[in-house]
């Protein structure tokens, strides 16, 4: 069993409620933090090596140290609970089952950043979760952890929950800020960065739910001790939401020293592939990151075992690697069609493009159309190159990274599964009733055996 820092108490009966949570050691990090200076807290988070868990992996302590502190201007912490990247459902788990852990982390972070009004921006579809969070906030307030003069420290803090209304783009931090201001979720051009000009033009830090929850163990154990868990720049633990063709879909906390193979096959985690099927491919970090065929999933191009951490998952770059991303781990078995799966993702990005930049707005639509043609046996060989060309023209040419996020899955699918695309073109009738199957993307397990 790996180290658990976030979900260690998840199965304690009643942990959703304050009394149980407090009895189990909850809110100790707030007690500790209020005795420290905000700058020292930032220092601890820096030392911990904690990286943002929302997808980009930016060091949290460093982000906090960038927040501008102009005289007389209030600052805000905003918790990004928009969680809309296909394959990702870990923040939901934290909020539903351990709401106090998030609230505790938010109080510590609010104190460190000097935020007297902190907002949780949650995707609108998670419509029942604001009630859970508000209940936890009210309990925390009733016990003196929120409100005026928290625990006699002189620090005031309120936490508010704001629901979005169905827009993936509002997970992008500047779109989120626009949305919080009551506008369409159109990302802003950076700079200025939110740390200087965020919500209502005030200095703002936006962090993911899991990042903020992880602040609790960082403060409790100290940054130094936290940094010793994991490996290299992948410190601490990471929540992985696993789905697709596996026996045990769900949310798992891993310390980042286990191998991808163990994660897929161990009964402690995914529990293998159902019905004796073989593994075909995996998208290891949410829909935006490159898909990997089985042979590259368990072993890097150098022949080393691939591990579940930031560095190892991206080993080989986009040519032969992928990314940790948001931790949305999507497994496809031998019966799945990569073209069709990629089509659903292309449709998703077309649907979610905010429409501000033409390469993204037009390109996502074209990619969906061409993929649909190929999938339904109406594609031409030249369409594959056209797809490649379009994705390249989107990548790097847009205001926000949604363009890249839309381009990468298509690029990786063609890069690794080109023969499957060609097979569709060459077999326009057959591809309607049958799938390409596993072909040479052998299940790494068999190669090993």
């Amino acid at each position, binding site marked *: 069993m790996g180290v658990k820092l976030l979900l260690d108490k998840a199965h304690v009966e009643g942990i959703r409620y304050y009394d149980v949570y407090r009895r189990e050691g909850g809110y100790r990090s707030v007690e500790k933090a209020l005795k420290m200076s905000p700058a020292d807290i930032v220092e601890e988070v820096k030392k911990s090596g904690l990286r943002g868990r929302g997808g980009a992996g930016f060091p949290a302590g460093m982000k906090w140290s960038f927040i501008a502190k102009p005289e007389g201007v209030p600052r805000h912490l905003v918790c990004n609970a928009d969680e809309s990247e296909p394959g990702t459902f870990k923040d*939901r788990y934290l909020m539903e089952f351990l709401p106090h852990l998030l609230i505790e982390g938010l109080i510590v972070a609010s104190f460190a950043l000097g935020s007297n009004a902190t907002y949780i921006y949650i995707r609108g579809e998670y419509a029942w979760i604001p009630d859970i969070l508000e209940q936890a906030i009210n309990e925390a307030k009733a016990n003196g952890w929120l409100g005026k003069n928290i625990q006699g420290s002189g620090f005031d803090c309120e936490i508010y929950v*704001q629901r979005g209304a*169905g827009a993936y783009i509002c997970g992008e931090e500047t779109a989120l800020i626009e949305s919080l201001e009551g506008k369409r979720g159109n990302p802003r051009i950076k700079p200025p960065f939110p740390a200087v000009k965020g919500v*209502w033009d005030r200095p703002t830090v936006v962090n993911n739910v899991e990042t903020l929850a992880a602040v609790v163990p960082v403060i409790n154990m100290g940054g130094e001790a936290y940094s010793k868990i994991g490996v290299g720049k992948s410190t601490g633990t990471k929540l992985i939401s696993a789905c697709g063709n596996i026996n045990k879909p769900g949310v798992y906390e891993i310390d980042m020293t286990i191998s991808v193979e163990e994660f897929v096959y161990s009964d402690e985690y995914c529990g293998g592939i159902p019905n004796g099927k073989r593994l075909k491919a995996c998208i290891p970090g949410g829909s935006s990151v490159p898909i990997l065929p089985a042979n590259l999933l368990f072993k890097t191009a150098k022949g080393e075992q691939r591990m579940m951490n930031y560095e190892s998952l991206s080993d080989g770059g986009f040519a032969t690697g992928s990314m940790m991303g948001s931790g949305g781990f999507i497994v496809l078995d031998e019966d799945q069609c990569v073209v069709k799966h990629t089509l659903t993702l292309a*449709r998703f990005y077309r649907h979610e493009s905010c429409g501000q930049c033409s390469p993204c707005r037009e390109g996502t639509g074209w990619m969906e159309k061409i993929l649909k043609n190929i999938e339904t046996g109406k594609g031409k060989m030249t369409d594959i190159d056209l797809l490649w060309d379009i994705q390249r023209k989107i990548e790097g040419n847009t205001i926000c990274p949604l363009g890249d996020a839309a381009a990468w899955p298509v690029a990786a699918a063609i890069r690794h599964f080109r023969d499957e695309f060609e097979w569709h073109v060459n077999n326009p009738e057959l591809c309607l009733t049958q799938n390409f199957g596993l072909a040479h993307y052998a299940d790494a397990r068999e190669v090993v055996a």
Partner: protein
Amino acid sequence: MAQFTEERLAKVKEIIARYPDGKQKSALLPVLHLAQEQFGWLSSETMDYVAGLLQIEPIEVYEVATFYSMYNLKPVGKYMFEVCQTGPCMVRGSEDIIEYIKQKLGIKVGETTADGLFTLKTVECLGACGYAPMMQLGKHYREHLTKEKVDAIIEECRRNAAANN
């Protein structure tokens, strides 16, 4: 005339108080949710009413209402089945579920049954990929869907509708 209940008006006030003075526009998304809860969908009359409440221009409300997928700009059935169709749900059988609902209710995606009870909609990933196939029904998710579960949900809705009439 669109008019909030007293309870909702109090809620609007409470929400506006969360933001700095003069930033009441920030309340727009939550207030539109309240409006949709009460009226079922957002007519232009309702949107104008919300604009008045928040002292912003009607166009600012239209802009937002048309951007976000959860706001209904036309009337919908009493029960809206929003079935996720993105990759992870697709590999766990969402297409079969969508087909089954279509047959069972005799409507296509985007349509409402003649009795006004059911609307079928397909949506993109709702953050329940590990519990697929799934749909949103009102405030909650229905997960691990099977044909039997769909039957039971339809029955449940019919019973509730009959009980409320």
